[in-house]
Protein backbone atom coordinates (compact mmCIF):
# COMPACT_ATOMS: atom_id res chain seq x y z
CA UNK A 1 0.00 0.00 0.00
CA UNK A 2 2.83 2.28 0.83
CA UNK A 3 4.27 1.99 -2.64
CA UNK A 4 1.09 2.93 -4.34
CA UNK A 5 0.71 5.80 -1.92
CA UNK A 6 4.14 7.11 -2.79
CA UNK A 7 3.53 6.79 -6.46
CA UNK A 8 0.34 8.73 -6.19
CA UNK A 9 1.69 12.20 -6.93
CA UNK A 10 3.72 10.79 -9.80
CA UNK A 11 0.65 9.10 -11.14
CA UNK A 12 -1.19 12.34 -10.99
CA UNK A 13 1.53 14.06 -12.95
CA UNK A 14 1.53 11.30 -15.52
CA UNK A 15 -2.07 11.75 -16.13
CA UNK A 16 -1.73 15.51 -16.19
CA UNK A 17 0.84 15.35 -18.96
CA UNK A 18 -1.00 12.86 -21.03
CA UNK A 19 -2.94 14.87 -23.59
CA UNK A 20 -4.72 11.92 -25.05
CA UNK A 21 -7.07 11.55 -22.14
CA UNK A 22 -10.37 10.14 -23.21
CA UNK A 23 -12.81 11.75 -20.84
CA UNK A 24 -12.94 13.60 -17.60
CA UNK A 25 -14.88 10.85 -15.97
CA UNK A 26 -12.26 8.31 -16.87
CA UNK A 27 -9.60 10.47 -15.35
CA UNK A 28 -11.47 10.84 -12.11
CA UNK A 29 -12.18 7.17 -11.85
CA UNK A 30 -8.48 6.45 -12.15
CA UNK A 31 -7.82 9.02 -9.41
CA UNK A 32 -10.27 7.39 -7.12
CA UNK A 33 -9.05 3.91 -7.84
CA UNK A 34 -5.47 5.01 -7.20
CA UNK A 35 -6.35 6.80 -3.99
CA UNK A 36 -5.61 4.46 -1.13
CA UNK A 37 -8.13 4.12 1.56
CA UNK A 38 -5.63 4.66 4.34
CA UNK A 39 -4.78 8.32 4.44
CA UNK A 40 -7.67 9.94 2.76
CA UNK A 41 -6.99 13.44 4.06
CA UNK A 42 -3.69 13.65 2.18
CA UNK A 43 -5.26 12.16 -0.89
CA UNK A 44 -8.01 14.68 -0.72
CA UNK A 45 -5.57 17.57 -0.58
CA UNK A 46 -3.39 16.21 -3.36
CA UNK A 47 -6.36 15.47 -5.53
CA UNK A 48 -7.55 18.97 -4.98
CA UNK A 49 -4.16 20.30 -5.98
CA UNK A 50 -4.18 18.35 -9.17
CA UNK A 51 -7.74 19.44 -9.66
CA UNK A 52 -6.58 23.02 -9.74
CA UNK A 53 -4.05 22.16 -12.44
CA UNK A 54 -6.86 20.82 -14.52
CA UNK A 55 -8.51 24.18 -14.34
CA UNK A 56 -8.82 24.50 -18.08
CA UNK A 57 -10.69 21.27 -18.47
CA UNK A 58 -12.79 21.31 -15.33
CA UNK A 59 -16.06 22.92 -14.59
CA UNK A 60 -16.66 24.09 -11.07
CA UNK A 61 -19.72 21.91 -11.02
CA UNK A 62 -17.69 18.86 -11.84
CA UNK A 63 -15.15 19.81 -9.20
CA UNK A 64 -17.79 20.00 -6.52
CA UNK A 65 -19.18 16.67 -7.60
CA UNK A 66 -15.75 15.18 -7.25
CA UNK A 67 -15.29 16.66 -3.82
CA UNK A 68 -18.58 15.23 -2.65
CA UNK A 69 -17.55 11.84 -3.91
CA UNK A 70 -14.28 11.95 -2.00
CA UNK A 71 -16.05 12.94 1.15
CA UNK A 72 -18.37 9.98 0.83
CA UNK A 73 -15.35 7.76 0.79
CA UNK A 74 -14.04 9.32 3.95
CA UNK A 75 -17.29 8.94 5.78
CA UNK A 76 -17.59 5.35 4.74
CA UNK A 77 -14.30 4.55 6.51
CA UNK A 78 -14.11 6.28 9.86
CA UNK A 79 -10.72 7.43 11.07
CA UNK A 80 -9.73 8.94 14.39
CA UNK A 81 -6.91 11.29 13.48
CA UNK A 82 -6.37 13.76 10.66
CA UNK A 83 -9.99 13.94 9.58
CA UNK A 84 -10.58 17.64 9.74
CA UNK A 85 -14.20 17.46 8.77
CA UNK A 86 -13.48 19.41 5.66
CA UNK A 87 -16.58 20.63 3.96
CA UNK A 88 -14.92 22.77 1.39
CA UNK A 89 -11.40 21.35 0.99
CA UNK A 90 -10.38 24.12 -1.40
CA UNK A 91 -11.22 26.81 1.10
CA UNK A 92 -9.40 24.99 3.87
CA UNK A 93 -6.21 24.76 1.87
CA UNK A 94 -6.27 28.49 1.26
CA UNK A 95 -6.89 29.18 4.92
CA UNK A 96 -3.97 27.03 6.01
CA UNK A 97 -1.64 28.82 3.63
CA UNK A 98 -2.68 32.25 4.83
CA UNK A 99 -2.26 31.36 8.48
CA UNK A 100 1.24 30.06 7.79
CA UNK A 101 2.34 33.34 6.22
CA UNK A 102 0.88 35.54 8.93
CA UNK A 103 2.86 33.74 11.68
CA UNK A 104 6.42 35.10 12.11
CA UNK A 105 9.21 32.86 10.77
CA UNK A 106 10.55 30.56 13.47
CA UNK A 107 14.31 30.95 13.97
CA UNK A 108 16.13 27.89 12.63
CA UNK A 109 17.75 25.79 15.33
CA UNK A 110 21.53 25.62 15.30
CA UNK A 111 22.51 22.00 14.76
CA UNK A 112 25.56 20.51 16.41
CA UNK A 113 27.37 20.04 13.11
CA UNK A 114 27.16 23.74 12.27
CA UNK A 115 28.86 24.96 15.42
CA UNK A 116 32.43 24.85 14.12
CA UNK A 117 31.45 26.60 10.92
CA UNK A 118 29.76 29.39 12.85
CA UNK A 119 32.69 29.79 15.23
CA UNK A 120 35.13 29.94 12.33
CA UNK A 121 33.04 32.55 10.57
CA UNK A 122 32.92 34.67 13.69
CA UNK A 123 36.68 34.42 14.18
CA UNK A 124 37.26 35.40 10.56
CA UNK A 125 34.97 38.38 10.95
CA UNK A 126 36.94 39.57 13.95
CA UNK A 127 40.20 39.20 12.07
CA UNK A 128 38.85 40.95 9.00
CA UNK A 129 37.86 43.97 11.05
CA UNK A 130 41.45 44.46 12.14
CA UNK A 131 42.97 43.81 8.76
CA UNK A 132 40.98 42.94 5.63
CA UNK A 133 42.37 40.06 3.64
CA UNK A 134 42.32 40.38 -0.13
CA UNK A 135 41.16 37.64 -2.41
CA UNK A 136 44.13 35.31 -2.86
CA UNK A 137 44.21 32.49 -5.34
CA UNK A 138 46.78 30.01 -6.53
CA UNK A 139 49.10 31.65 -9.01
CA UNK A 140 49.07 35.08 -7.42
CA UNK A 141 52.41 36.68 -6.75
CA UNK A 142 52.07 38.25 -3.34
CA UNK A 143 54.02 40.40 -0.96
CA UNK A 144 53.60 39.62 2.72
CA UNK A 145 54.79 41.86 5.52
CA UNK A 146 55.24 39.87 8.66
CA UNK A 147 56.03 40.99 12.15
CA UNK A 148 58.50 38.58 13.68
CA UNK A 149 58.58 38.72 17.46
CA UNK A 150 62.37 38.23 17.53
CA UNK A 151 63.02 40.89 14.97
CA UNK A 152 60.82 43.60 16.30
CA UNK A 153 62.69 46.46 14.68
CA UNK A 154 61.30 46.12 11.23
CA UNK A 155 58.86 43.94 9.36
CA UNK A 156 60.08 40.94 7.41
CA UNK A 157 59.01 40.93 3.82
CA UNK A 158 58.16 37.70 2.06
CA UNK A 159 57.49 37.67 -1.60
CA UNK A 160 56.61 34.75 -3.78
CA UNK A 161 54.08 32.83 -5.76
CA UNK A 162 51.11 31.26 -4.03
CA UNK A 163 51.51 27.53 -4.55
CA UNK A 164 48.39 26.43 -2.78
CA UNK A 165 45.59 27.63 -0.61
CA UNK A 166 44.18 25.35 2.03
CA UNK A 167 40.83 26.45 3.36
CA UNK A 168 40.23 25.59 6.98
CA UNK A 169 38.20 28.41 8.46
CA UNK A 170 40.37 30.60 10.60
CA UNK A 171 43.48 28.53 9.80
CA UNK A 172 43.24 29.11 6.07
CA UNK A 173 46.82 28.96 4.85
CA UNK A 174 48.71 29.83 1.72
CA UNK A 175 52.02 28.37 0.69
CA UNK A 176 54.49 30.81 -0.81
CA UNK A 177 57.49 29.72 -2.84
CA UNK A 178 60.49 31.76 -3.73
CA UNK A 179 64.13 31.31 -4.58
CA UNK A 180 66.14 33.10 -1.89
CA UNK A 181 69.90 33.33 -2.29
CA UNK A 182 69.91 30.41 -4.66
CA UNK A 183 67.83 28.04 -2.55
CA UNK A 184 64.12 27.42 -2.92
CA UNK A 185 62.13 28.21 0.18
CA UNK A 186 58.49 27.41 0.83
CA UNK A 187 56.66 29.02 3.68
CA UNK A 188 53.14 28.32 4.84
CA UNK A 189 51.32 31.36 6.22
CA UNK A 190 48.00 31.40 8.00
CA UNK A 191 46.42 34.41 6.32
CA UNK A 192 44.29 35.47 9.27
CA UNK A 193 47.25 35.56 11.62
CA UNK A 194 47.65 38.78 13.59
CA UNK A 195 51.39 38.69 12.91
CA UNK A 196 50.83 39.39 9.26
CA UNK A 197 50.66 43.10 8.86
CA UNK A 198 49.96 43.31 5.17
CA UNK A 199 49.23 41.07 2.23
CA UNK A 200 49.32 42.56 -1.21
CA UNK A 201 48.80 40.85 -4.52
CA UNK A 202 51.47 42.09 -6.90
CA UNK A 203 50.53 40.24 -10.03
CA UNK A 204 49.09 37.02 -11.24
CA UNK A 205 50.47 34.21 -13.27
CA UNK A 206 48.15 32.05 -15.29
CA UNK A 207 48.19 28.56 -13.89
CA UNK A 208 45.99 25.60 -14.65
CA UNK A 209 46.29 23.90 -11.30
CA UNK A 210 45.15 24.42 -7.77
CA UNK A 211 48.44 23.21 -6.27
CA UNK A 212 51.65 24.15 -8.03
CA UNK A 213 53.86 21.43 -6.63
CA UNK A 214 55.42 20.98 -10.05
CA UNK A 215 57.39 24.16 -9.47
CA UNK A 216 59.69 22.22 -7.17
CA UNK A 217 61.04 20.20 -10.06
CA UNK A 218 61.23 23.05 -12.49
CA UNK A 219 63.98 25.51 -13.14
CA UNK A 220 64.67 27.99 -10.38
CA UNK A 221 63.98 30.74 -12.87
CA UNK A 222 60.25 30.03 -12.60
CA UNK A 223 60.22 30.63 -8.86
CA UNK A 224 62.36 33.75 -8.82
CA UNK A 225 60.64 37.01 -8.07
CA UNK A 226 62.38 40.32 -7.73
Amino acid at each position, binding site marked *: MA*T*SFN*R*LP*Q*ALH*MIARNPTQSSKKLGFS*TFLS*CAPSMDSSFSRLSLNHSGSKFGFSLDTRVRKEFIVRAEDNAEAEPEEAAVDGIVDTEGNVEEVVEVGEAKPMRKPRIKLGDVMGILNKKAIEVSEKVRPVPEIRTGDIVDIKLE*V*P*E*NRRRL*SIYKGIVMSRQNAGI*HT*TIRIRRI*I*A*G*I*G*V*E*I*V*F*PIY*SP*NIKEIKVMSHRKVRRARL*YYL*RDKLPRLSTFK
Partner: protein
Amino acid sequence: MAAALASRFSRGRSLIGSLSNAFSGLMNSSNGIMNGNILSQQQQRTFIQMGTTLKVVDNSGAKEVKCIQSLKANKKGARLGDIIVGSVKEAIPKGKVKKGKVVYGVVVRAAMQKGRVDGSQVKFDDNAIVVVGIKEKKKKKPEENKKNKVEFNQPTGTRVFGPVPHEMRNKKQLKILALAQHMV
Protein backbone atom coordinates in the same frame (compact mmCIF):
# COMPACT_ATOMS: atom_id res chain seq x y z
CA MET B 1 -0.69 0.62 -12.61
CA ALA B 2 0.84 3.73 -11.24
CA ALA B 3 4.08 1.88 -10.83
CA ALA B 4 4.01 0.76 -14.45
CA LEU B 5 3.33 4.29 -15.61
CA ALA B 6 6.18 5.65 -13.54
CA SER B 7 8.65 3.07 -14.82
CA ARG B 8 7.68 3.68 -18.42
CA PHE B 9 8.21 7.38 -18.02
CA SER B 10 11.64 7.11 -16.42
CA ARG B 11 13.03 4.26 -18.47
CA GLY B 12 14.58 6.50 -21.07
CA ARG B 13 16.21 8.62 -18.41
CA SER B 14 17.60 5.64 -16.54
CA LEU B 15 19.25 4.20 -19.65
CA ILE B 16 21.11 7.41 -20.31
CA GLY B 17 21.87 7.62 -16.63
CA SER B 18 23.42 4.17 -16.58
CA LEU B 19 25.58 4.93 -19.62
CA SER B 20 26.91 8.09 -18.07
CA ASN B 21 27.42 6.19 -14.80
CA ALA B 22 29.56 3.64 -16.58
CA PHE B 23 31.67 6.38 -18.12
CA SER B 24 32.06 8.23 -14.87
CA GLY B 25 32.86 4.96 -13.13
CA LEU B 26 35.76 4.39 -15.51
CA MET B 27 36.95 7.92 -15.11
CA ASN B 28 36.70 7.68 -11.35
CA SER B 29 38.63 4.47 -11.15
CA SER B 30 41.45 5.78 -13.34
CA ASN B 31 41.50 9.06 -11.45
CA GLY B 32 41.51 7.15 -8.20
CA ILE B 33 44.58 5.21 -9.22
CA MET B 34 46.23 8.41 -10.36
CA ASN B 35 45.44 10.04 -7.06
CA GLY B 36 47.04 7.16 -5.22
CA ASN B 37 50.17 7.46 -7.35
CA ILE B 38 50.29 11.18 -6.95
CA LEU B 39 49.98 10.87 -3.21
CA SER B 40 52.80 8.39 -3.07
CA GLN B 41 54.79 10.61 -5.42
CA GLN B 42 54.34 13.60 -3.10
CA GLN B 43 57.49 13.44 -1.10
CA GLN B 44 57.10 13.01 2.60
CA ARG B 45 60.17 14.66 3.92
CA THR B 46 61.53 13.16 7.11
CA PHE B 47 64.26 13.69 9.62
CA ILE B 48 67.98 13.82 9.07
CA GLN B 49 69.36 10.52 10.23
CA MET B 50 72.37 8.29 9.90
CA GLY B 51 73.34 8.11 6.27
CA THR B 52 71.84 11.41 5.17
CA THR B 53 74.21 13.46 3.06
CA LEU B 54 74.15 17.16 3.69
CA LYS B 55 75.70 20.11 2.02
CA VAL B 56 78.12 22.26 3.94
CA VAL B 57 77.42 25.96 3.46
CA ASP B 58 80.37 27.63 5.06
CA ASN B 59 83.98 28.06 4.10
CA SER B 60 85.38 25.64 6.63
CA GLY B 61 86.69 23.39 3.89
CA ALA B 62 84.20 20.57 3.82
CA LYS B 63 81.80 20.26 0.94
CA GLU B 64 79.66 17.27 1.79
CA VAL B 65 79.04 15.51 5.03
CA LYS B 66 77.31 12.24 5.77
CA CYS B 67 75.39 12.15 9.02
CA ILE B 68 76.60 9.63 11.56
CA GLN B 69 74.54 10.58 14.54
CA SER B 70 71.97 13.14 15.51
CA LEU B 71 72.70 14.62 18.91
CA LYS B 72 69.08 15.28 19.57
CA ALA B 73 67.34 13.09 22.12
CA ASN B 74 64.67 12.36 19.53
CA LYS B 75 65.33 8.86 18.29
CA LYS B 76 63.87 9.65 14.90
CA GLY B 77 66.56 12.05 13.81
CA ALA B 78 67.58 15.64 13.54
CA ARG B 79 65.51 18.54 12.28
CA LEU B 80 66.14 22.14 11.45
CA GLY B 81 68.34 23.69 14.09
CA ASP B 82 69.67 20.48 15.62
CA ILE B 83 73.28 19.41 15.95
CA ILE B 84 74.53 16.34 14.12
CA VAL B 85 77.77 14.43 13.99
CA GLY B 86 78.96 13.78 10.50
CA SER B 87 81.85 12.38 8.50
CA VAL B 88 83.31 14.59 5.82
CA LYS B 89 82.97 12.87 2.49
CA GLU B 90 84.15 15.65 0.23
CA ALA B 91 86.38 18.63 0.94
CA ILE B 92 88.32 21.30 -0.84
CA PRO B 93 92.03 20.63 -1.10
CA LYS B 94 93.26 23.33 1.24
CA GLY B 95 90.83 23.80 4.06
CA LYS B 96 90.51 23.68 7.79
CA VAL B 97 88.49 20.53 7.59
CA LYS B 98 89.83 17.59 5.65
CA LYS B 99 88.16 14.59 4.14
CA GLY B 100 87.50 11.77 6.56
CA LYS B 101 87.28 14.01 9.59
CA VAL B 102 84.38 13.71 11.99
CA VAL B 103 82.69 17.05 12.52
CA TYR B 104 79.81 18.52 14.42
CA GLY B 105 77.37 20.56 12.41
CA VAL B 106 74.18 22.49 12.99
CA VAL B 107 71.42 21.97 10.47
CA VAL B 108 70.59 25.31 8.89
CA ARG B 109 68.37 24.10 6.07
CA ALA B 110 66.16 21.08 6.09
CA ALA B 111 63.82 19.72 3.47
CA MET B 112 61.42 18.75 6.22
CA GLN B 113 59.06 21.51 7.27
CA LYS B 114 59.54 23.11 10.63
CA GLY B 115 56.58 24.60 12.39
CA ARG B 116 56.79 27.92 14.10
CA VAL B 117 54.86 29.25 17.05
CA ASP B 118 52.73 31.59 14.96
CA GLY B 119 51.35 28.73 12.89
CA SER B 120 53.61 29.18 9.90
CA GLN B 121 55.88 26.49 8.49
CA VAL B 122 59.12 26.78 6.62
CA LYS B 123 60.88 24.30 4.41
CA PHE B 124 63.85 24.48 2.12
CA ASP B 125 64.76 22.64 -1.02
CA ASP B 126 67.84 20.96 0.38
CA ASN B 127 69.61 19.86 3.56
CA ALA B 128 72.58 21.89 4.70
CA ILE B 129 74.79 22.30 7.76
CA VAL B 130 77.32 24.69 9.12
CA VAL B 131 80.34 23.09 10.75
CA VAL B 132 80.60 24.10 14.38
CA GLY B 133 83.22 21.78 15.70
CA ILE B 134 85.67 19.07 14.84
CA LYS B 135 85.95 15.91 16.84
CA GLU B 136 89.40 15.10 18.01
CA LYS B 137 90.59 11.55 17.99
CA LYS B 138 93.05 11.77 20.82
CA LYS B 139 92.11 10.45 24.23
CA LYS B 140 90.68 13.04 26.56
CA LYS B 141 92.11 13.66 30.01
CA PRO B 142 89.83 12.75 32.93
CA GLU B 143 89.33 16.39 34.08
CA GLU B 144 87.97 17.41 30.73
CA ASN B 145 85.39 14.67 30.86
CA LYS B 146 83.67 16.44 33.74
CA LYS B 147 82.27 19.06 31.41
CA ASN B 148 79.57 16.99 29.85
CA LYS B 149 77.71 19.53 27.85
CA VAL B 150 79.80 21.09 25.12
CA GLU B 151 78.26 24.13 23.54
CA PHE B 152 78.54 24.21 19.78
CA ASN B 153 78.20 27.90 19.18
CA GLN B 154 81.18 28.92 17.16
CA PRO B 155 81.20 27.99 13.52
CA THR B 156 84.56 26.89 12.15
CA GLY B 157 84.17 28.89 8.99
CA THR B 158 83.99 32.62 8.57
CA ARG B 159 81.24 32.87 6.00
CA VAL B 160 77.83 31.32 5.59
CA PHE B 161 76.11 30.96 2.23
CA GLY B 162 72.45 30.86 1.42
CA PRO B 163 69.40 31.70 3.51
CA VAL B 164 69.28 30.96 7.22
CA PRO B 165 66.06 30.56 9.18
CA HIS B 166 65.12 32.37 12.36
CA GLU B 167 65.28 29.14 14.26
CA MET B 168 68.98 29.76 14.80
CA ARG B 169 68.10 32.43 17.30
CA ASN B 170 66.23 29.93 19.42
CA LYS B 171 69.14 27.52 19.22
CA LYS B 172 71.60 30.18 20.32
CA GLN B 173 73.51 30.17 17.06
CA LEU B 174 73.83 33.91 16.95
CA LYS B 175 77.16 33.95 15.16
CA ILE B 176 75.62 32.10 12.24
CA LEU B 177 72.80 34.61 12.12
CA ALA B 178 75.30 37.42 12.07
CA LEU B 179 77.20 35.87 9.18
CA ALA B 180 74.09 35.00 7.19
CA GLN B 181 73.40 36.47 3.78
CA HIS B 182 69.69 36.35 4.12
CA MET B 183 67.38 35.49 6.96
CA VAL B 184 64.14 33.70 6.32
